[in-house]
């Protein structure tokens, strides 16, 4: 078509639209997306030109990039398609996908290398038997119970599973020896095509991915089971009415997901290292690929995965970055995830009905007086403990003090999530990134003078970073926000904290002078510091308790329960979200500065995404909307360390990861949180809680066996009487049904739209 002809068509289309839609018309979304995409393309070209390494562009180099990139992309694709299959059929996004793949890769190593089984046998056993069984087991034990939980808890449980798998693998295969899985047909098995060396392993990887793509396509669109799988997503109950077995579908999806994770893990193991963290993170990169497919489209997911693989190889081969950006190829998935997030259409405010939340009871709000009493009690306890008057012999030793400080600092950082996640419902896995920013600011500004103003500045200057994180949050909801926060944390880990100007890895020694406040000198490991932290923590808890009872607290909770309804009351949802992100970042930054003072020297490892996850999980296990849960989380963090040190068994070696992971998975049984449960038990012993005593008395009365005479019975109620009563009741129910629910349901059956 000539340019002129296409122009004419364009004009005709425009005229059509104008005639069709006489009044205002919204800007079509693709324009914005095109602008963003072309901007990024220009950016990518500029970056590439600026950091061109000078590698000659030969057939061999480009071909090598494509082959290695495609095989890497194939692995991402396999893992990501597992995610997509599980998400589309069960509605659960499995953050543990990477960790599951890592675990099965270790099992494969155990069979193939450690026990010397033949590769085909080990492969078949892991991929076709153990991994699917594991998936079904996960579905039965955990995932099924997630279905009716709020999204925040769903996400936390699968993240818990991820951390737990890391803990299990680290316990089972301890990191004291190197492990390698050889590529299929060894390192030397390769052939050459037009000057490009292709190893058999990479060829197999690419072929396996292609085969999996084909099989999944056939399964979902041709097989009866696949059709049922897609039907169940749309409406579980409707699919069940039409004869689909939802439970079988869910189990199948998990079996496939787990099996695909295993394939990805086993294929990546020879290319990477058999190390728990590395494998888990490599397969996490598949998230970005799945996000390209909007978690639903397998073809787009594959395209995203291949782009990712080739892009990473391009960076490794042709670009060279300074030390600070040396992780650029690792950061590419994170960058891609962010790009996808920016390109996603604005999440619309929608009225969705509140049925999912209606099951929960509202918790009684703590008042400021109660919180003050509790905080004072905590301070006395810490005072007595550090003074050596409590019967823990080593408590007041320097080790004990240091653990106490760790507990308080962790608890303070955890507090930052209480308003953000607990009240406003914004999931964030990035509290340690903010803490790290706060620590760096504190170190830069007043670290060596010991001025307390630095703490205030750390909080104040971290706050705008929170606003940055709020940018995706005002556009996204739920799952995508959680992913964005992970990408945010990972991006800071790979590209920000690595800068020499931010944290200088060559600078040894303490970066923080003792803090001087009103003539007191507080060293980061001293008793005085612990007591000061206790006071600070107490003040923050009480402040939060007051905030929750203020109009901002109510507004945040209202926004969590229904953004649409909140907006119809005049609440500016964007402004309200930004406010809570800013507050949370300031609190985390403040906590990070306190952490810096404790450890003395900052390094990149302290603020990694994976280090932060147990902190988030333990808070949620305590009950994310309660400030007191931060203390629970802090105590547990330290408890795992203490247990590990006290009993030096090798199976405890990964306890600080394993513990929080398992606790978070078990949380599925008690979504309200541990602190809420404990509080319910203890409230009746508080003198001013007459209401709790009354509730307890009512509960006891309800559970008491009635005396026969009380019910007007002439003899005890027997098992036979019970059967007779139940039968009578079921008949009565049948009779009552048409007049009530049945009729109402029949009335509301929707007429199909034209």
């Amino acid at each position: 078509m000539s340019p002129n002809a296409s122009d004419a068509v364009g004009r005709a289309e425009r005229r059509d639209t104008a005639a069709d839609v006489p009044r205002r018309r919204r800007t079509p979304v693709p324009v914005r997306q095109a602008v963003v995409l072309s901007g990024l393309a220009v950016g990518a070209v500029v970056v590439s030109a600026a950091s061109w390494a000078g590698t000659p562009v030969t057939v061999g180099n480009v071909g090598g990039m494509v082959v290695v990139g495609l095989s890497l992309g194939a692995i991402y694709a396999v893992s990501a398609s597992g995610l997509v299959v599980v998400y589309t059929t069960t509605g659960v996004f499995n953050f543990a996908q990477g960790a599951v793949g890592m675990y099965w890769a270790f099992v494969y190593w155990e069979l193939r290398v450690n026990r010397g089984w033949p590769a085909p046998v080990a492969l078949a056993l892991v991929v076709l038997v153990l991994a699917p069984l594991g998936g079904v087991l996960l579905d039965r034990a955990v995932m099924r119970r997630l279905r009716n939980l709020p999204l925040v808890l769903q996400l936390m449980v699968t993240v818990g599973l991820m951390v737990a798998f890391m803990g299990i693998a680290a316990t089972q295969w301890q990191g004291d020896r190197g492990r390698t899985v050889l590529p299929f047909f060894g390192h030397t098995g390769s052939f050459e095509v037009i000057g490009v060396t292709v190893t058999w392993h990479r060829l197999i990887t690419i072929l396996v991915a292609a085969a999996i793509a084909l099989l999944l396509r056939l399964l979902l669109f041709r097989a009866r089971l696949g059709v049922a799988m897609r039907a169940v997503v749309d409406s579980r109950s409707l699919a069940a009415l039409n004869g689909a077995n939802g439970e079988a579908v869910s189990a199948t999806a998990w079996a496939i997901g787990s099996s695909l994770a295993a394939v990805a893990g086993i294929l990546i193991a020879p290319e990477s290292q058999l190390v728990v963290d590395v494998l888990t993170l490599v397969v996490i990169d598949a998230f970005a690929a799945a996000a390209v497919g909007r978690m639903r489209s397998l073809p787009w997911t594959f395209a995203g995965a291949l782009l990712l693989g080739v892009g990473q190889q391009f960076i490794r081969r042709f670009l060279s970055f300074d030390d600070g950006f040396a992780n650029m190829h690792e950061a590419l998935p994170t960058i891609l995830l962010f790009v996808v997030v920016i390109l996603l259409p604005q999440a619309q405010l929608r009225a969705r009905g509140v049925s999912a939340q209606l099951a929960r009871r509202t918790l009684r709000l703590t008042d400021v007086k109660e919180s003050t009493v509790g905080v004072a009690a905590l301070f006395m306890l810490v005072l007595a403990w550090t003074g050596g008057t409590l019967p823990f012999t080593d408590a007041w030793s320097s080790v004990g003090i240091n653990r106490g400080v760790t507990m308080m600092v962790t608890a303070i950082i955890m507090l930052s999530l209480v308003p953000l996640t607990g009240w406003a419902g914004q999931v964030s896995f990035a509290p340690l990134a903010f803490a790290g920013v706060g620590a760096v600011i504190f170190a830069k500004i007043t670290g060596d003078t010991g001025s307390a103003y630095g703490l205030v500045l750390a909080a104040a200057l971290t706050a705008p970073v929170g606003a940055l994180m709020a940018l995706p949050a005002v556009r996204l909801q739920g799952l995508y926000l959680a992913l964005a926060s992970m990408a945010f944390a990972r991006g800071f880990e790979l590209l920000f904290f690595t800068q020499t100007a931010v944290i200088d890895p060559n600078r040894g020694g303490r970066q923080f002078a003792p803090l001087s406040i009103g003539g007191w000198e507080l060293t980061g490991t001293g008793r005085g510091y612990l007591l000061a932290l206790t006071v600070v923590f107490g003040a923050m808890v009480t402040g939060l308790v007051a905030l929750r009872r203020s109009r901002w607290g109510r507004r945040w909770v209202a926004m969590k329960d229904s953004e649409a309804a909140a907006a119809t009351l005049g609440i500016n949802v964007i402004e309200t979200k930004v406010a809570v992100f800013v507050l949370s970042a300031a609190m985390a930054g403040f906590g990070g500065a306190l952490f810096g003072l404790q450890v003395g020297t900052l390094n990149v490892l302290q603020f990694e995404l994976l280090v932060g996850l147990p902190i988030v999980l333990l808070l949620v296990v305590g009950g994310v909307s309660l400030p007191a849960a931060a203390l629970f989380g802090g105590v547990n963090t330290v408890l795992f360390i203490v247990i590990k040190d006290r009993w030096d068994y090798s199976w405890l070696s990964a306890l600080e990861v394993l513990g929080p992971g398992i606790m978070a998975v078990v949380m599925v049984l008690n979504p309200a949180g541990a602190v809420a449960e404990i509080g319910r038990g203890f409230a009746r012993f508080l003198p001013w809680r007459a209401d709790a005593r009354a509730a307890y008395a009512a509960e006891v009365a309800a559970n008491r066996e009635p005396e026969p005479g009380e019910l007007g019975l002439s003899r005890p109620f027997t098992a036979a009487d019970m059967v007779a009563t139940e039968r009578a009741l079921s008949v009565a129910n049948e009779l009552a049904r048409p007049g009530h629910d049945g009729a109402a349901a029949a009335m509301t059956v929707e007429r199909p739209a034209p």
Partner: protein
Amino acid sequence: MTGTMTGDGRRARLEARGVTVRFGGLAALSDASVDVRAGEVVGLIGPNGAGKTTLFDVICGLRAPDAGSVVLEGADITGRSVHRRARLGIARTFQKLEVFGNLSAVDNVRVAVEMRRRWDRSPMRPLAEAAAVLERVGIAAVAGEAVAGLPTGTARLVELARALATNPRVLLLDEPSSGLDDSETSEVAGLVRSLCDDGLAVLLVEHDMSFVMDICERIFVLDFGRIIAEGSPQDVRVDPAVQAAYLGTEAAPMNGHRQAP
């Protein structure tokens, strides 16, 4: 479309003009226009899936129309965000409950009163005022209870109270009587009438025909996204197009009887 003046010379407080909404290739609303005057209760009826709730979403800003405009007291507000429209005086309830389940009943209302500080400079005591609104709706007894634990009908009244607490100029009620028993329904009807006497404009979607026929001065009938009739309850009742629309789907309600509870 007529201007801001309606037939009998009274000025429309709220108008939706020629609203069209498409879901993919499907027109949920085609050129639908409704208007409400101050002190008037207007009903919006039609079979399920006719586009009633979609029209509410367009009016309060939850959904942008593909064509058409929303005009409040002569000012075009089509481009305004949801919260801006709320501040201009548009309040609504939801067909599927959108209560704040984790707040108590009184706090649900209090959030609305507190937001008014932003645009309403009159002195206020939010807690007392919220309690007064609950009293007016008749659910003062459950003020301290968690809304998550309330029966559907009571929760619906909490939503009504919450909408009233914004001091609206236009109130959109989406099936206000569903989930309510007969006495609650007549209380709500009385409340809506007294609100109108104070000059509020009310637009309501309702399936309970006796409720609609009793309370509304004018009724718009929506079918397949088009307004097929407009007029007094008596006119609409005998309109052949309306009867055709309901025939075979929901013929019974048009006889003026209540649906089965």
